Every structure is written in structure tokens, then in C-alpha cells.
């Protein structure tokens, strides 16, 4: 384990830029910490903290100048690896020469500050896109990851329950644990080793070397939410007619926020269009949400006509059918869907409500 001081951290980010990477890191925009293109360590949210709750997100001022003294904003790596809107292909009408779409990437991404939940979320999306989508694969394989162990748990976080954090265990080249004056750095890959070797570090002291474990175990005790995941797929499958779905549907606005901030939701529309001169057709991929009526639109009618059926689809997919489809839960416990739900619907609460009445509630067969 190495110790990296603040100037060394700045140098690490500079070395990534020099190597041709495009830095993607946390930055304050419109009252939230988002992931954006950054130029270096000076763009990071020093001294910024956050307060989260169901339907609540507020930036705060910390007493210190830490760069990563917050849990996470609405963005995850998904926004860059699987962009909200992306041209897949341009094809001329005559079919002769194909104009390849312009990939807007300035260079391979170097993600700075992703958390354990975010890294797990990328691993979850890998199972969807890696084999099927060469563009995703290219981006994903080229990307570098300077991750951060969480020192703060958000009030809506439950990675501890999902086994996805708070300590980073997968998917990073380097993982940092922030101290008041610098970082403890651990290496996960050869690339991480090379990157770290190129900047000034020193061997971490014995106390410093204990920090990653100490900090993350302490964070784990401060998780704002908890979820009993035992037998979760079967619990949800057998409760497809539970009255709770109708109850939550009365609060749910079907606004799609939860699916937009979810770091694993992968549903998308394939949208075909044509240029104004109508000689080039464009195929675009856009994020879609199972909360919209057209998501299930089939041969002139929606399959899922009610908000209850759409909420059930989302939750059951995330926690149950995802396991059948991809061999992993679709939830990484980041809690973004709770924080960014305008009416504060809490998945952990909804699942618990079903669990405590499992098998007790009279259901009618529709």
C-alpha cells in the first residue's frame, strides 16, 4: 500500500491526461455532484458534502477540504459507458459507402471517484453489453478507474446489504482511501501499478495501511438503509399479485427518475430516423424506462397498462428476474432511486412491506 499526498494525486490525474485519457470525475453542477469531464484535481468538489434522503438531495459545506467527502450524486459510470443518447449507425440510402457514426469520445475515459457500488454496477452492465455491443466493449476495455472507498454513507445507501460495498473489491486500477491530507492508494491492475509508479508516493505507514479497512467498516455501520435479501427472487415472483403494488402505484408518478439514475438499468429504445435531405438514415439508441407506457407497446397496445404493473416490472426485474437473466442481482444498493424519486418511494421499504405480509395477504386472481 502506498501513501499519495494531494500534490501526488494531482500529478496522477495529470499523468492520465498526458496519456490521452479523458478525465471523468465529480464536479458540482446545478446544486448536485455530477460526473463530468474534468481537467484535473482542482475541478473536484473540495469541502463539499451532501445530505440525502428519500426524495431529498442537498449539498452541504464540510468542515474539512476533502475531495470525496460525500456518497454519490445522480450519475454513475453508465452515463459514459452507455450514454443516454448515442448514434449507432449512419447509413446512406444508396447503401454504397457507410458513414460510420462519429464516436464523440475524446479519448479513453479515466473515471475518477467512482465508488464500490458504481464499480459493481459496471460489472452488472458488462453482463448485458460486453458480448452484444462492440462499442460498449471498446469503451469499457479502454477505460481506467481511479476509485474511492466510501468514507461517508448516504442516508439512502444499502450496498452493505447487497454485498457491493462500501470497500472497493473489483473493477479498479487504483483505489484511494481519503485521509485529511492525502490518500492511501491500493493497486488493482498492472495499469494501476504503472500509473502509481509514475507519480511520487511513499510506502504507507502501518496505521495508514489500516485505514481502508477501518474507514469502510465504519462506513458500513452508518448505512442509511438495510435490505433483507434472503430468497428475494422467489419472494417477489410469488407476490406478483400482492396488493402493495397497487398501493405504491398510488404514490408513484411514473416519472422514470429511478430508472434514469439507476446505474444498472439498461433498457433502451432503438430509434430510426432520416436526415433532412432524406439520403442518410440514422439509428440512435436512447435510454428507455419500463415506467413509460410505450416500453411494452406491442402490436398496437401496451402490455403493462397500469403504474402498478410497471412498478412491479421494475422492482421484480431489478431484484428477481435479473438473477435469472444475468446471474446477478440488478441492484447494487446505491440508493439513488430512493434519493431521486420525487415522492421518496423507497425500494427497501416496498420490499419489506411485501416480505412482512408474504403469504398473509388475500390476493385475488385477475
Amino acid at each position, binding site marked *: 500500500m502506498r501513501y499519495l499526498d494531494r500534490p501526488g494525486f494531482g500529478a496522477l490525474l495529470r499523468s492520465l491526461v498526458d496519456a490521452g485519457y479523458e478525465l471523468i470525475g465529480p464536479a458540482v453542477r446545478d446544486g448536485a455532484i455530477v460526473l463530468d469531464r474534468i481537467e484535473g484535481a482542482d475541478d473536484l468538489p473540495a469541502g463539499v458534502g451532501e445530505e440525502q434522503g428519500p426524495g431529498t438531495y442537498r449539498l452541504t459545506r464540510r468542515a474539512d477540504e476533502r475531495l470525496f467527502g460525500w456518497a454519490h450524486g445522480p450519475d454513475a459510470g453508465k452515463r459514459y459507458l452507455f450514454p443516454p443518447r448515442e448514434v449507432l449507425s449512419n447509413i446512406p440510402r444508396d447503401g454504397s459507402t457507410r458513414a460510420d457514426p462519429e464516436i464523440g469520445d475524446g479519448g479513453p475515459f479515466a473515471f475518477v471517484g467512482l465508488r464500490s457500488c458504481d464499480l459493481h454496477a459496471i460489472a452488472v452492465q458488462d453482463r448485458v453489453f460486453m458480448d452484444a*455491443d462492440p462499442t460498449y466493449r471498446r469503451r469499457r476495455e479502454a477505460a481506467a478507474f481511479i476509485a474511492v472507498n466510501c468514507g461517508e454513507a448516504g442516508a439512502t445507501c444499502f450496498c452493505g446489504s447487497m454485498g457491493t460495498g462500501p470497500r472497493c473489491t473489483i473493477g479498479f486500477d487504483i483505489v484511494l482511501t481519503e485521509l485529511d491530507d492525502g490518500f492511501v492508494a491500493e493497486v488493482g491492475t498492472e495499469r494501476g501499478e504503472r500509473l502509481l509508479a509514475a507519480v511520487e508516493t511513499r510506502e504507507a505507514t502501518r496505521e495508514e495501511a489500516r485505514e481502508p479497512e477501518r474507514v469502510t467498516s465504519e462506513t458500513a455501520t452508518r448505512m442509511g438503509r438495510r435490505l433483507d435479501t434472503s430468497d428475494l427472487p422467489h419472494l417477489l415472483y410469488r407476490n*406478483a399479485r400482492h396488493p402493495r403494488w397497487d398501493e405504491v402505484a398510488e404514490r408513484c408518478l411514473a416519472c422514470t427518475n429511478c430508472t434514469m439514475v439507476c446505474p444498472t438499468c439498461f433498457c433502451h429504445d*432503438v430509434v430510426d430516423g432520416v436526415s433532412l435531405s432524406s439520403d442518410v*438514415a440514422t*439509428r440512435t439508441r436512447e435510454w428507455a424506462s419500463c415506467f413509460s407506457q410505450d416500453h411494452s407497446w406491442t402490436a398496437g397496445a401496451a402490455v403493462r397498462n397500469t403504474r402498478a404493473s410497471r412498478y412491479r416490472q421494475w422492482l421484480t426485474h431489478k431484484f428477481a428476474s435479473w438473477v435469472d*437473466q444475468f446471474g446477478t442481482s440488478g441492484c447494487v444498493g446505491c440508493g439513488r432511486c430512493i434519493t431521486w424519486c420525487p415522492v421518496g418511494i423507497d425500494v427497501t421499504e416496498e420490499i419489506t412491506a411485501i416480505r412482512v405480509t408474504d403469504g398473509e395477504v388475500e390476493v385475488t386472481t385477475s
Partner: protein
Amino acid sequence: MSSAVPAIRSVDPEGFPARTAVIQRIVPETPESSTFWSTWRDGDGDGYAFEPGQFNMLYLFGVGEIPISISSDPAHPQRLGHTIRFVGRVTDAFRNLRPGDELGVRGPFGRPWPLHEAEGGDLLVVAGGLGVCPVRPAIEWAMRHRDRFRRLILLVGARTPSLLPYQEQLDEWLASMERLGVELHLTVDRSEPGWLYGVGVVTTLFEKAGIEPARTTAFICGPETMMRFGAGDLLDLGVPAERLYLSMERNMQCAIRICGHCQLGPYFVCTDGPVFRYDEVRDLMEVHDL
């Protein structure tokens, strides 16, 4: 889930149609549907072949792409028939097509009808309305391999006679079916003048056809409600659940299980289906709006 994912063939890396077909003939089937017969623009379509029950993604330049089951004889994959009901933005654009127009074709996709499972016994095909379209290649295949089956029974129903597709071929079919000993029963919910066949929902034909449950493998295709009741009735008659198959329909935008639209419980209908064994989907079909 146990269902095997068939190899994905002929997908352009960027998701664009790999083959181009040229429309040769357009046959109106019902007031709101037509069959578009096409051949490949380039040679044999790069060795294109399909199995009964599979579908293609059909692309109209700049308009969009839709999943359409293949309705023609699998022995002639150079001459494809797709029956399209005009129900939305892309299918409506098909109304304007003329012979000579081009289609992008990605496919074939999906799990086919398990014809080999039915070999040696009786194959019962139950189709409602345009549900005939996805089973038609299975019927063609079974007729072509008539000796592999004991009885071949086709039960076809529609709400009214004019909603029954492929009437253009009906006489020809009746002749070859008689020659091959295929038992065909037609029925409509509401008769119209000139209708020579039965009246009643398609499930009433099970008794009339005298099916032998212990020897029967059934392929059912039609509206979901019809398939649910049809499968239920056959189950009650004693056909084992694992020998009942049906074809599901969902929104599909990629056909390679990444767009997420065609989910049915744990399944992606595009690759785990569209043909399912009844016991795989029975519980799912009983949940409203799933």
C-alpha cells in the same frame, strides 16, 4: 433459466440490417394486413436459412425496424413471406410499399417450434386469426415431412371469415392436405355469407377433431387469451404440459436481448422465445399486465 440461447447470426456489429430483400408481391390478407413476398437482392442472401417459428427484424429506410415472424416455407428461404398487420407507425409505412421496394432484414432470430419433439406422434396446430402466420412454416415443414408424424391436425379459427389470412392458398392447401391426410378444421366466431366451415371458438374444435391426448404435441398461436384457454383445455384433456408450445409476442427493438423491451418475467422473448413450452410461461400468463 433452462432455455438455450440460439447463436445470433447475421447481426451487423452496429446493429444494422445485414441483408437487403426486394419486395416481389404484396397480397392483401385481411382488411388490416398483407403478406409481403420478397427475394434477396444479392444472390441467396448470403446463405440465409430459418426454422419455423423464427422471426426477422424488418427495416424500412429511415422509418424503423419491427419484429415480424416468417410465414413462408422454410424449404425456400430465398422467397420469404412476412404477414404484417398495420397497427403502428412502422407497419403503417408498409402500406405504401410497392413491388421493387427494398427491405433491410436482420435475422432469423428466436427459438423455433420444436417440430422434432412432435415426430412419431400427432402434431396438433391450433391457430387463431393472424396466429396462423408464425405457425405456417411449421405446417409447411410438417407437410413436407408427412411421414414423420402420425396424425397432422390443423385447427384454425378467426373472429370472422374475412379475418382469416392465406385464403388465396386455401384451395391449393385443401388439395394437398387431402392428398397427405392432413386433418383441417376451420371455424369462425361469427359467420358471414358464403362461409362453408364451422362456427364457434377454436377451442371447440378439440372434441370435433378427436385428438388423442397421449400422442399429441400441440403448437398454439394466437391472441394470448386464446392461447391461455387453448392450452388450459388441452391440459384438461390430458395433453402433458411439456408437450404444449405457444408463441409469445412482445415489443422487440434489438432481438439480441439488450434493449429490455420484450421481457416476460425472467425471459427475453426475442431469444428465450418467441416459442415457449407452456409450463415455462403458464404462471406468467396468469398474471395480468405482466
